[in-house]
């Protein structure tokens, strides 16, 4: 296991808007998401809930019709975000020199919620004949990775990670290892979820007061010796998650020096809304900030059910200079 891994491309869509610039504007305090308030009939009566909704995406004509008609809304968001990250990272993203040296990791806690609901609804309403082959094949959880692979011409390994609130950390770890062990030179990582009518109902019925979020944060991760890239945002030097009895301590973390004196912290979760994969968006923000500040070490930690998750980022400016 050797070599460094860098974040070389970023893409984004969420309730903040579409594109990386929305993240930069949010960091500068110039942009906030638009909150949409809705009333939902639940088993407990009508309840108010709120959403951050990502903008609609128009797909380019280059995507084959056979793919387009199967794409879920979250898959369209994934394409927009992933394509932006690829264009950001590569000198020529439309013509990858070695397509089998690029991998894809999609992280999604819930997959194609809307399309899966539509598929299920038709079965409930019409019985087995209601099962639509195109909706079925578009709603399976690895459909997003498959559609990205076909649309972007990527032929390396693919993985769809679906581990609820450990999805982000698991996705980045899979990509990190592929790169460290030389299986590929680049990995496109697209992480996020969509909300659906059914999910909104469940949240409202459970009494959740959180604003539900949706979107996809995309990264291109590259080996240090990878060719054809435009820039490095920062180095990704550590990705770990451990459960229960042996959580990572600060001293185990390579970037522990950030805790040595007055560390500062910023949380961007309120900008993206509640979703199991929200940490991916925070890592995007951290990458953007780290890219512009040589002194910065970024560390992300969260805990649910006792798990501790750590992503280490540090500036790549030193390597470039």
């Amino acid at each position, binding site marked *: 296991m050797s070599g460094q891994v860098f974040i070389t491309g970023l893409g984004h869509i969420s309730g903040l808007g579409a594109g990386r610039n929305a993240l930069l504007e949010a960091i500068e305090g110039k942009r906030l998401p638009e909150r949409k308030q809705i009333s939902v009939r639940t088993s407990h009566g009508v309840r108010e809930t709120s959403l951050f909704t990502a903008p609609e995406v128009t797909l380019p004509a280059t995507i084959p019709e056979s793919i387009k008609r199967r794409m879920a809304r979250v898959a369209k968001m994934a394409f927009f975000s992933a394509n932006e990250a690829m264009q950001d990272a590569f000198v020529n993203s439309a013509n990858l020199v070695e397509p089998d040296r690029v991998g894809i990791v999609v992280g999604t806690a819930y997959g194609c919620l809307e399309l899966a609901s539509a598929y299920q609804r038709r079965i409930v309403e019409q019985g087995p004949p209601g099962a639509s082959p195109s909706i079925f*094949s578009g709603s399976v959880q690895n459909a997003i990775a498959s559609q990205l692979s076909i649309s972007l011409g990527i*032929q390396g390994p693919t993985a769809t*990670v*679906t*581990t*609820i609130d450990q999805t982000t950390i698991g996705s980045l770890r899979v990509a990190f290892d592929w790169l460290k062990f030389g299986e590929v030179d680049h990995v496109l990582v697209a992480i996020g979820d969509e909300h659906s009518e059914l999910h909104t109902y469940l949240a409202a019925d*459970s009494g959740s007061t959180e604003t539900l979020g949706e979107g996809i944060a995309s990264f291109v991760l590259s080996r240090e010796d990878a060719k054809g890239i435009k820039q490095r945002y920062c180095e990704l030097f550590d990705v770990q998650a451990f459960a229960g009895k042996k959580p990572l301590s600060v001293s185990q973390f390579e970037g522990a020096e950030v805790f040595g004196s007055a560390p500062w912290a910023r949380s961007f979760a309120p900008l993206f809304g509640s979703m199991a994969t929200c940490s991916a968006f925070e890592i995007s923000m951290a990458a953007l900030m780290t890219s512009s500040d040589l002194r910065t070490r970024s560390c992300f930690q969260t805990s649910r059910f006792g798990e501790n998750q750590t992503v280490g980022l540090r500036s790549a400016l030193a390597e470039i200079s």
Partner: protein
Amino acid sequence: LNSQRHLAATPALSITGLGCVSAAGIGIAETEKTLFEAPSGAEVAPEPPLILDTSEQHYFKLRSREDWAEYAAFIAAPGMKPCLFAILAAEEALSSAGITRDELANLRVGVCLGSTVGGTNYQETFLQEYFSGKLPGSDPLEQDYVSNCALFLSRHLGLNGPALTVNNACTSGADAIGIAANWLRADLCDVVLCGGTETILTKIYYGFRSLMLCSLQTCRPFDRARDGLSLGEGAGIVVLEKKATKRKPKVHLLGYAGASDSFHPTAPHPEARGLNSAALKALKQSNRNFADIDFVNAHATATPHNDEAEGRWLTKNLSHARISATKGFTGHTLGAAGGVEAVFTALSLMHGKLPASRGFSNVDPEIGVIPTLGVETGSYKSALSISLGFGGTNSVLCLGRTEGDPGSDQ
């Protein structure tokens, strides 16, 4: 070859424990009996395996057992069944490795499982009520958080390593083993429980039927008259460790690789582009060539397109090797298949026996593959287990009886 420039032969990992539940048997002992003592496909007409209950559903269902009473809640909730199967297979795997619960507490133990439905909960009754315009309670939301199969197994066993569920359609189980291998190589864990687990939900069954991929008979892999797959359920889990362990390896994981067809949402690349790429990378990692492979556990779903693409690739590259197609015993267990068939491959290496390719009887001249017709014996040293999936995913595991060079008995 240039695309493999950073790949090098990597140290083998030890598979020290095996656990499996499927229509071929509840546990390794029953599975071995079914695989290695069952009559061949050529001698008898395809029919459901003896230990199979097909009275209610059109898929290869696990036989229910009285001693599963403690798991009644799982069996009642279809979406939780992958968690049950994972527990059964993982506990058997740990037992066969000789790892006690006390030892587990002192090890960094990861869980990496593949599944297509074990990632989210599925409450059929709730959905029927909801889509019928009723207002059911929101308990399923809470269940989502406990039904993820890798997280569930990790918490059930009180483990402290990473947990990850991968959903790569029918390659999921093999991919989970490959991801776990990297965790060990990166020293994230001492031990990983890895493989696949699956059940067949009605929505999945209807989906495959809508795509006209299901046979109304028991599947006939590689057969000229094959007309589709039989779905199945179960779990196959292995205990994977670095070789420096006090436990004796049963077999070795020599290599793994995945690749994408980048071709079509549901059909395989006709020239098996992704499979070829994955196989070459897995072989390089294993320090093996095609010529070193003694047998292949083929994906062989018995759909016309899969078997044609895979079979032609096998004929072109591995005509010297024996081909075993085992879905006639288990059905296609989707996300579990890579794990279940890794266990089958390990058993064949351990015992020097290959099962019959149940359901096959007539050669398809378009493919040319003649898989095992009855139980075969041999001194098998290296094998591939192949998985292909919806969306163009391809994964290849290379397993060896020994960790040394090809031909070595050391």
